[in-house]
């Protein structure tokens, strides 16, 4: 099953490449080749970044919010009034063409994150370049008080069977990293798809967890009107024994599935969705998501972005 998913992820960005090669025969079309219009409406696709980076010197303010899960039904209005909500406020700035840096702060674990996104290659209209390629990196700092770290037992050794009695707190244990390679394609005026591979590392995890996780990601949008789209993303933390520190996974992170609607205007994009993960930072989702979308582990969430050009 996993192999089939991986194969699908690898093939999807190349949909339409054969047709693309036919179109590039005309020399004039090659000469005028430019990046495709609006491959995405926003730099966010629910929980994942996209290849879309606004023009240079654009400031973006983003609000990402996830309510509690729907499991308690109407008693907490399907999670809308549940205490387990999460929110991230972020600012991104486009320093140079196709390169953006950002900072954000998240309620869960009081993460401070610093991120950068670089669209290395853009898909072009005449299909001279059939896909866009984007690199994304996030460094996060767990901002909780030291008491949280002191009160827990961690696997901070490369030897999972080492005694854990000599635990001592170090600031570096708050750090985590996430890096991602995204390949996307605007398949048609209505349909855009992207697939990605990621690597997550936490300096400190609980005894039953892994420090490292490789993930696969799939996302897309289908426009049903000039401003509105159906959007989805699916993130899979892969079970790879060779990089795991566990003989058996006790609580392996769950897949994150989300399905939503997007409405965009000149300076705003609004996405509302039903999704699995309670975390907002990608490394948190890849290592700590325990919500199961097959067992009422779904929550309403939204993403709002606002752009200012300077």
């Amino acid at each position, binding site marked *: 099953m996993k192999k089939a998913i991986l194969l699908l992820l690898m093939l999807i960005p190349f949909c339409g490449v054969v047709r693309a090669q036919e179109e590039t025969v005309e020399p004039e079309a090659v000469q005028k080749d*430019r990046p495709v*219009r*609006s491959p995405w409406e926003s730099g966010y696709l629910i929980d994942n970044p996209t290849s879309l980076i606004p*023009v240079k*010197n*654009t400031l973006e303010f983003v609000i990402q919010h996830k309510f509690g899960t729907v499991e308690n039904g109407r008693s907490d209005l399907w999670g809308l009034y549940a205490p387990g909500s999460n929110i991230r406020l972020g600012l991104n700035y486009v320093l140079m063409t196709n390169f953006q840096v950002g900072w954000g702060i998240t309620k869960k674990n009081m993460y401070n994150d610093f991120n950068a996104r670089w669209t290395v290659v853009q898909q072009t209209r005449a299909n001279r370049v059939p896909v866009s390629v984007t690199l994304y990196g996030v460094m996060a700092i767990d901002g909780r008080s030291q008491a949280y770290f002191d009160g827990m037992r961690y696997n901070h050794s490369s030897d999972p069977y080492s005694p854990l009695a000599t635990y001592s707190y170090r600031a570096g244990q708050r750090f985590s990293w996430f890096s991602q390679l995204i390949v996307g394609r605007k398949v048609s*005026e209505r349909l855009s798809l992207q697939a990605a591979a990621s690597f997550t590392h936490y300096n400190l995890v609980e005894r039953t967890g892994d420090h490292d996780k490789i993930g696969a990601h799939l996302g897309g949008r289908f426009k049903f*009107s*000039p*401003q509105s789209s159906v959007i989805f993303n699916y993130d899979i933390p892969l079970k790879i024994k060779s990089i795991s520190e566990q003989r058996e996974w006790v609580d392996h992170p769950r897949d994150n599935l989300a399905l939503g609607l997007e409405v*965009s*205007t*000149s*300076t705003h994009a609004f996405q509302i969705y039903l999704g699995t993960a309670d975390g907002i930072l990608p490394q948190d989702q890849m290592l700590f998501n325990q919500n199961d979308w097959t067992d009422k582990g779904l929550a309403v969430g939204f993403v709002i972005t606002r*752009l200012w*050009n300077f």
Partner: protein
Amino acid sequence: MKGKNLLVMMTLFFFGAAALSFVVSQDQKKGAPWNVPAEYKAMKNPHAGQADLVPAGKMLWAKHCKSCHGNLGLGDGPKAASLQTHPGNFKEAAFQAQTDGLIYYQSFIGRDEMPNFEKKIPEAEDRWAIVNYIRTLK
């Protein structure tokens, strides 16, 4: 009797004020004539009559223009009511009689409540696509 007169006066005053408030709030001013630089007046549309750009223009119109100018360019978009100046009716013959260069300047350089769109729509072809779409609104 005096009390009855007072009541009539107050009722008339109340309804008069209410009626006046409707007139005042809906009385948007018409935009003053545009002072367009000569270079824009003389600007030629390099994509004039290019029908294949119209779908792209329609998409960009929906994203950037529709909220004020409305679906059909009548100036009746959801944001239009909060503007002090009416966004104009693009179906009117006087509007459509303008050159493409004049429409380009008004659309993307802007003034006052009409924002500048040069950074939001950085590509010239996309701007002309919108101009071509505006031409279909007549």
